[in-house]
């Protein structure tokens, strides 16, 4: 197959090395992928910690196909469609007690930045307008928005952007102590 690789800027990837020797996944089902050259690969990482029900679970596939036969897209502002409310209710039902409202986004990165804005809006509303700082963890990962990398603690993700991060963000040390915790099973003591 002749595929032009150069125009696509791949995320979190060594673009130059990858494009010299690409690994392309074309198909997926259950626990397995099939590559462009026909090899079967066992997916040991659920895609990217995502595909908890395996790839192309038939019920989920059918639900998306059915939805495409009904409505593809509608304005999310000042208008609604039933599935958004049904999803929010389904999430509410399985969430811890007291957490009963759901704001939807397209990704974890967006969800993190949304959470930070909700926190600021909350304190603004209570009158505590001076509450503007956030605390994250060293080695924390909260997506790649400006908010997410500010509270995140992975230096490679922030290095080029330090002058533009949220002001006053603090970081807790991470909890991993190799000398005391090596080879712990489950939660370390």
């Amino acid at each position, binding site marked *: 197959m002749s595929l032009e690789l150069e125009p696509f800027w791949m995320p979190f990837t060594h673009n130059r090395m990858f494009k010299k020797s690409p690994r392309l996944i074309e198909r997926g089902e259950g626990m397995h992928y099939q590559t462009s050259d026909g090899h079967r690969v066992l997916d*040991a990482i659920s895609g990217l910690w995502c595909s*908890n029900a395996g790839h192309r679970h038939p019920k989920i596939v059918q639900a998306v196909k059915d939805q495409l036969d009904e409505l593809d897209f509608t304005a999310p502002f000042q208008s609604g469609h039933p*599935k958004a409310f049904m999803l929010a209710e389904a999430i509410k039902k399985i969430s811890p007690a007291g957490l009963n409202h759901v704001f939807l986004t397209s990704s*974890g990165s967006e969800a993190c930045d949304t959470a930070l804005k909700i926190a600021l809006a909350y304190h603004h509303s209570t009158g505590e307008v001076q509450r503007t700082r956030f*605390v994250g963890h060293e080695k924390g990962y909260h997506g790649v928005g400006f908010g997410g990398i500010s509270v995140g603690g992975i230096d490679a993700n922030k290095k080029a952007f330090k002058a533009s991060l949220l002001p006053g963000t603090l970081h807790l040390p991470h909890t991993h102590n190799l000398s005391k915790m090596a080879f712990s099973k489950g939660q370390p003591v």
Partner: protein
Amino acid sequence: MADNLEALVDANGSETIAGVVVEPMQGSAGVIVPPHGYLKKLRSICDAHQILLIFDEVITGFGRLGEWFAADRFGVIPDMIICAKGVISGVVPLGGVIVRDSIYNEIMVGPSHLVEFFHGYTNSGHPLACAAGISAINVYESEGLLAKSSKLEIELEKAIHSLRDEAHVVDIRNIGMAVAIEFETRNNQISMRVMEIFQYCFDHGVMIRYTGDIIAIGPALVCDETEIEAIIETIRSAIRAIA
């Protein structure tokens, strides 16, 4: 360790801090599992200082730790939960913030004909994503995948810790269906060894993840024991084949 939060609060003034954002288990950094009591302590310090506690459960949510959320697994309820990934089983992009009533109610103020919170995305609540999410949650429930995940965790723990004595392994960390193996850096070249392990595994039919000097695996909840064995043995062969 959670006393570090108290120290930060004392040094910087609790009245300036809006929120603490943590992954209950740090996934991207290589499955860093919280010590016993750590999250409870963060909760109580946040409560004492009216600081919001936000759990980033993008990786830990929707069955990865054998429960709907790490909040359930660790018995600590935050003020907000950030989620994505597992909520739609990766099928159509979606993320969410699950919010405590008191936060929502505090923002739902002012003249009712005006927008309360000036924020939102074109794709917030996209029909396809919602259909996928409703179905995914239904699948997790109807197929008992959370309970399955709890059972598989035991097998996965046993299997992954069998790699402990392999060359260059300095740590193995696991919880739920999330595992990381940390290696010694080779010749001061971060990631070189694990990149080669990744490539070997891929060439031999298994896709893992690597970051820094760590490899991570997080099989789907529909995995079975023979697949866990195949993953571990491929990693073992990779470690033995790579210097």
